[in-house]
């Protein structure tokens, strides 16, 4: 449903077949693990069996002596970084931490922490050799709970961590600590706000660590050539950030590292940090051969970057007529082994759906003995959406107000100020709520319980994500047959080759099929930030539109030359150039004549928007709870989301559906089962992600409130769909059973325990 009068487009809004589709349905597409070259060795990483231990000694002699072993490396082979801080696009990070996460030096901070690596003629020999690396550990007490880790007497993970205070008053700033960051945002006067409220609700929430769960494990093949140049073929969300990280870790100039992005089998934020490339590169330098390393599934769970578990306290004050007046949140996130959880973003997101005059939020980034966390689809937002959206639902119940009405009454709109300061431009929060209100799902009768032990209910929740802008580059060349070759730097995880090509095609007035997109390596295109932050269709799209405009103006000049008229009398419009006296030449025709008038035509475009305007979504779900077992079945699910302008509606729907199902997994089953020994469920069987038998069709309503800062009004769509599901499902469970769930996942044993209490 389009809100504003939508311009007529020829390509945008259609559903062409993706350009890389045939390769991907025939098995021909080359993913990272599919890459091979002559002389290839296979690497295996030696990993810690302890959650926390000091390394006393590493003996690699036996491993190195095994026939077929070509290289063994430890952190001694990595350059030293001292206290060096480097900004790799997401604020300054300690290079010592990054390096130690790739190959640790004196301590292991989580089970699965990389300690050494071997390369051998085949993976079986490498695995045998890895078992022969003897590491002597002195086990230390681990700390696994975020609140326990904040206590003054907690075991300290990193001696060099001191709390960074952002907005919060400084205390014990010079003490070693696990609290890496303490943030505080405030707007209005929360104390007065609560005093002016008729009802105040204060609740506590816990969520556990969860994983992105991409099906393709991390992989990298590196060749350290005799000329000192390192080439890495890998699966990554951002070839340029992978290059920067690899170069910084190896202390090489960026130009000495080339990253060739292979097809990528899912990322969701988890394939931005590098784990394998520097290690594969070191093994390659030692052996003089290319080395491929592929993680096992257990390694992926135990030693990549899941998203933090959290403890959240949330307080909302509301007037009798259902106006949210004051809000307060206290949010502690597990950073994992090293600082860097998305708690800051969580704090900015927590109240973003609502126009609340008085608010305060405090956030803590806390190291615990679990893998170093990383981005996962709308990082930080889902945890806090679970908290606020269930409290909002409680308010609705208490006041007897329809959840959709209360959201409309309080929705953020243009001009609403977020707790961290910025003010919203035109956004579509209200419109997504209206869309749910008008949906056949919401208008249908709530599901009826089939029997006493099968209780049904309906829940609603909303969510917010910023969407990132950042930098992209595109170049495009006109072919003599009237098509365009488009080169971009954004790795394509979900069909973005096509959404970018469509924007170029729309601008040039040609078809999507007449554009041939290619994702280039770091030497084939200008700098491009990661495929993440829901930014590619927006930001690389802008770059493609600019490249197309560049071509349009060159073609107008060429047509002028062809017709021998002054250049200011020609104009590119509607897929061709018009000139004086009704002159007109189509793009295709002109493309065939370019060799006569000036030669090849190449356009280029870059983008570097600071930010996008935010994305909002509102979801509605019907569930059935088996009160004997605590199992929740999703009966029906509808998502309404503001996409600004949907370039390729099928892939917009796909993002919405995929995000929802990840959210359902997070809500109902997924969790890291952690104890002193480490993760106990590091397989897909035990880390229970939704299968297609667990979910129904996901109904989608694309709302289109065009964004003002994109030529076609695009808003990123990839991330926000994961935010509302846990809360929507919790609210539906409440409707079904009268039980309020305040911990994730709401798995059968946990829900059953609550049901038995009630």
């Amino acid at each position: 449903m389009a809100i504003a009068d939508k311009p007529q487009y020829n390509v945008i809004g259609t559903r062409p077949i993706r350009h890389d589709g045939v390769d991907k349905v025939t098995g021909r597409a080359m993913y990272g693990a599919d890459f091979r070259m002559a002389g290839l060795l296979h690497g295996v990483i030696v990993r810690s069996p302890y959650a926390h231990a000091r390394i006393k000694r590493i003996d690699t002699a036996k491993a190195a002596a095994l026939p077929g072993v070509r290289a063994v490396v430890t952190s001694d082979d990595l350059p030293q970084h001292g206290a060096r801080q480097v900004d790799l696009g997401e604020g300054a990070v300690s290079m010592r931490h990054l390096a130690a996460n790739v190959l640790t030096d004196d301590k292991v901070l989580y089970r699965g922490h990389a300690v050494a690596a071997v390369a051998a003629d085949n993976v079986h020999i490498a695995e045998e050799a890895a078992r022969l690396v003897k590491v002597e550990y002195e086990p230390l007490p681990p700390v696994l709970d975020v609140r326990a880790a904040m206590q003054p007497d907690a075991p300290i993970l990193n001696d060099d961590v001191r709390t960074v205070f952002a907005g919060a008053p400084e205390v014990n700033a010079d003490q070693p600590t696990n609290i890496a960051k303490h943030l505080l945002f405030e707007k209005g006067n929360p104390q007065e706000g609560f005093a002016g409220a008729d009802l105040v609700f204060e609740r506590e929430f816990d969520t556990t660590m969860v994983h992105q769960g991409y099906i393709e494990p991390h992989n990298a093949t590196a060749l350290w050539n005799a000329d000192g140049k390192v080439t890495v073929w890998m699966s990554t969300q951002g070839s340029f950030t992978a290059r920067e990280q690899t170069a910084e870790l190896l202390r090489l100039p960026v130009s000495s590292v080339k990253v060739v992005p292979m097809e990528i089998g899912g990322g969701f934020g988890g394939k931005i940090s590098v784990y394998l490339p520097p290690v594969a590169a070191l093994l390659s330098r030692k052996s003089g051969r290319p080395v491929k390393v592929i993680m096992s599934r257990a390694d992926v769970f135990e030693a990549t970057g899941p998203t933090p578990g959290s403890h959240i306290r949330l307080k909302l004050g509301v007037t009798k007529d259902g106006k949210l007046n004051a809000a307060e949140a206290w949010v502690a996130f597990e950073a994992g082994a090293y600082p860097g959880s998305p708690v800051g973003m969580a704090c900015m997101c927590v109240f973003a759906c609502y126009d609340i005059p008085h608010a305060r939020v405090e956030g803590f980034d806390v190291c615990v003995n679990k893998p170093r966390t990383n981005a996962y689809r709308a990082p930080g937002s889902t945890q806090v959406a679970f908290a606020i959206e269930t409290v909002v639902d409680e308010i609705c119940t208490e006041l007897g107000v329809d959840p959709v009405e209360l959201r409309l009454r309080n929705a953020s709109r243009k001009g609403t100020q977020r707790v961290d300061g910025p003010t919203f431009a035109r956004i579509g929060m209200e419109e997504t709520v209206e869309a749910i209100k008008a949906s056949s799902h919401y208008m249908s009768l709530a599901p009826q319980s089939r029997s006493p032990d099968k209780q049904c209910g309906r829940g609603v929740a909303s969510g917010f994500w910023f969407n990132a802008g950042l930098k992209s580059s595109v170049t495009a060349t006109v072919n003599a047959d009237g098509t365009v070759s488009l080169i971009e730097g954004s790795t394509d995880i979900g069909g973005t080759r096509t959404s970018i090509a469509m924007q170029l095609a729309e601008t040039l007035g040609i078809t999507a099929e007449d554009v041939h997109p290619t994702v280039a390596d770091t030497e084939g295109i200008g700098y491009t930030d990661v495929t993440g932050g829901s930014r590619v269709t927006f930001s690389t799209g802008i770059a493609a539109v600019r490249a197309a405009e560049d071509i349009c103006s060159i073609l107008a000049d060429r047509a002028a030359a062809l017709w021998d008229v002054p250049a200011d009398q020609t104009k590119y419009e509607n897929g061709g150039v018009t000139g004086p006296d009704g002159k007109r030449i189509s793009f295709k025709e002109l493309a065939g004549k370019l060799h006569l008038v000036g030669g090849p035509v190449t356009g280029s475009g870059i983008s570097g928007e600071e930010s996008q305007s935010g994305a909002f979504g509102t979801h509605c779900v019907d569930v059935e709870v088996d009160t004997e077992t605590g199992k929740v079945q999703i009966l029906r699910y509808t998502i309404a989301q503001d996409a600004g302008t949907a370039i390729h509606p099928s892939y917009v729907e796909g993002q919405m559906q995929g995000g929802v199902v990840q959210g359902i997994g997070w809500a109902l089953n997924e969790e890291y089962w952690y104890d002193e020994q480490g993760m106990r469920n590091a397989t897909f069987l035990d880390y229970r992600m939704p299968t297609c038998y667990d979910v129904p069709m996901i109904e989608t309503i694309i709302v289109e409130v065009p964004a003002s800062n994109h030529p076609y009004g695009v808003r990123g769509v990839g991330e926000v769909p994961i935010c509302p599901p846990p809360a929507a499902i919790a609210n539906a469970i409440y409707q079904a059973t009268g039980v309020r769930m305040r911990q994730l996942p709401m798995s059968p044993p946990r829900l059953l325990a609550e049901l038995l209490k009630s």
Partner: protein
Amino acid sequence: MSNKHVISLELNGDAVEFLCEPRQTLLEVLRDILHLTGTKEGCSNGNCGACTVLFNGRPVVSCLVLAMECEDAKIRTIEGVACDGALDEIQNAFLEGAALQCGICTPGFIVQAQALLDENPNPSEDEIRFYLAGNLCRCTGYDKIVRAVQAAAEQRRAATTAG
């Protein structure tokens, strides 16, 4: 070095022979010895279905099959689904229905769906979901995959009636 064995089998309609070690799985042989990398590895312990191939017509996870068990077997992989350069109905339906995002699960789903439609040309949504439940997809939420299989089934039935 362990002893290597000669295995002969039929792969995508062709007679194939290879040398393998007893510890090598069919998945490893397909990918690393025969260089058929369309069959994907997501977990190597039978839990994701990315490595699904047809073994004498039945879908199996090739990471749990030892290559030595394949003597004389008829194996069909994703590379053998398209015939003479023309895509199969399922492949077309996946393309037209945008049933893939990253595509890493796609070969496994297409092979599994082949087996389903061979067994049951007119499956209900529930039957499709049950049959595909051993294949994980983390990107799509399954909606478009299920619809693609429905569309392909319809296409095939139409083709059979017409033919």
